[in-house]
């Protein structure tokens, strides 16, 4: 059998996002931003003597 797309799921807005792919894109951006913020967090809050 081959999976058929479920129209209710594949189409239509998801909250503020126009479709699933926008939401997935937001998650990817969220991950990148989290890594950047954690890096800045690590650098700016490093008060050790080097």
């Amino acid at each position, binding site marked *: 059998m081959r999976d058929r797309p479920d129209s209710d799921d594949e189409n239509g807005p998801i909250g503020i996002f126009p479709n699933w792919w926008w939401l997935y894109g937001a998650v990817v951006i969220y991950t990148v931003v989290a890594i950047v913020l954690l*890096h800045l967090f690590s650098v700016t809050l490093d008060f050790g003597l080097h």
Partner: protein
Amino acid sequence: MTVIDWAVFVLYFGSVISFALWQSRKNVGVEGYFLANRRLPWAAVGLSVMATQASAITFIGTTGQAFDDGMEFIQVYLPQPLVMVLLCVVFVPFFYRAKVFTAYEYLENRFDAKTRSLASFLFLLSRGLAAGIVLYAPAIVLSVIMGWDEKITILIMGLVTILYTMVGGITAVIWTDVIQMVMMFAGIAAALVILFGTLPAEVGVGDVVYIGGIQTMWSSIDWSWDPTNTYTIWSGMIGGFFLALAYFGTDQSQVQRYLTAKSLRSSRLSLIFNAFLKLPMQFAILSIGVLLFVFYHFERPPLLFNSAEVTMVHESTRAAEFQGLEMEHGGVHSLRREATLELLDARRGGENLAVLQQQIGEYDGQLAQLRSDAKAIVSDVRGTSSNDVNYVFPSYLIRYVPAGILGLMIAVIFAAAMSSLDSELTALSSATVIDFYQRYFRPKADESHYLRVARISTFFWGIFACGVALYAGRLGSLLEAVNQVGSFFYGSLLGVFLLAFLVKKSNGDGAFGGLLAGMLAVFTVSVTTDVSFLYYNVVGALTVLAVGSMISKLSDGGAPTV
């Protein structure tokens, strides 16, 4: 605990279990028992997914780890949002539309019965024993910290979980998870507030951040490329990615959760919910550990937090040596406390901080070395390694948290353990009944029969978990060996599912042969290299994909596309 603590504790569990059983009244048949008749809202499923992953030892062990090593553990969780996207795009649609009860049932639809049975058997072997550890690890910590009997703690925690899981099935499990997860959020917030409240009045938020920063405790990202180092951005993003994909995509205890959602859209939303929430939650839990590190600059901590281990050493031939370390620890701590207060004053006065910082750094190093020496003595006396990190946070709770709140915090630790155990029990029961009993013994019995067997199976696995937990202390190295075996097949199992989803011409022989080859490859890597265990899943999954594709190509035909 005081009477108020006990009242909070009992009231909490009474109301949670009553609510969960009330919710499960709408369950119909075996599908209701295992999948809540696929009608649950996404937020409930999402919280349950989170609660299943967050065991009690995650809560108390992670804080202890941050106390010792800072925030670097968060790197393991960084790829999790990306994993959730991949699950939504690839895994969930296949599982959801195939209308399966277990992840492994899908493997028979796609490949053959032997691949399904081997995968399900490996799951039962590993998770059956893991369920015992889920129960044992927090019970032993609570029994030491609270002075409760270890066996009674295990039995209370285990039997209550068996009762509501057996009666209410997955619906009761998910609704208890929801409340327990909300309680865990409240517990984390309360811990952060209380920690700030118990610091000396003159120490502000900026001071806390500064003291943590002197020892680079806030350092969360390590860009160094060293495959033997477990906590780097690369091991997190690569190894952690495969680990999370294997766990959320192939482990029945997680797959079963998102199959209970009322639509494919709800299943996906429950995972996206986790994608956004998991990192902040883990960040907050780790921050508790760093705050504890700062807190103990001003309050004298014990040399080791596990009082049972300390008592054992005090009664051994190495007691004098250990007492010497304790005295030295007390002395160095006093010096560090004075130097820290002096440093904060100097910082407020805009003076040069370098000398004081260096001094505190040296004291920190000495204290860490003393702790390390003490752990070595414990390991020598006990014959197994010290697990002191698990006692750092509970030890703080019992000594510094006010009445009422303490009961709540202990309830949260109980809740975390039970919300993981109940998920294991429903997953083990569903794999036993659907993948083996129904498949091989009674394929055409009526609903009421399967429902009865499902309850018996849940009871059996619950008692099995209690048995493992009660004897876990004696099983020691055997459990470690089983855990290692588990890590050998986790990535390989992921490889089988990736083969099913991504390689259209793969077949049963390829999947079965690939699975065996994947486990062999991981075993070989583990005994011949020092590569971090996080990479085992990468090795296993990629070997299965390569070998499975090759065998499929060499064998006749190829499976029809699914």
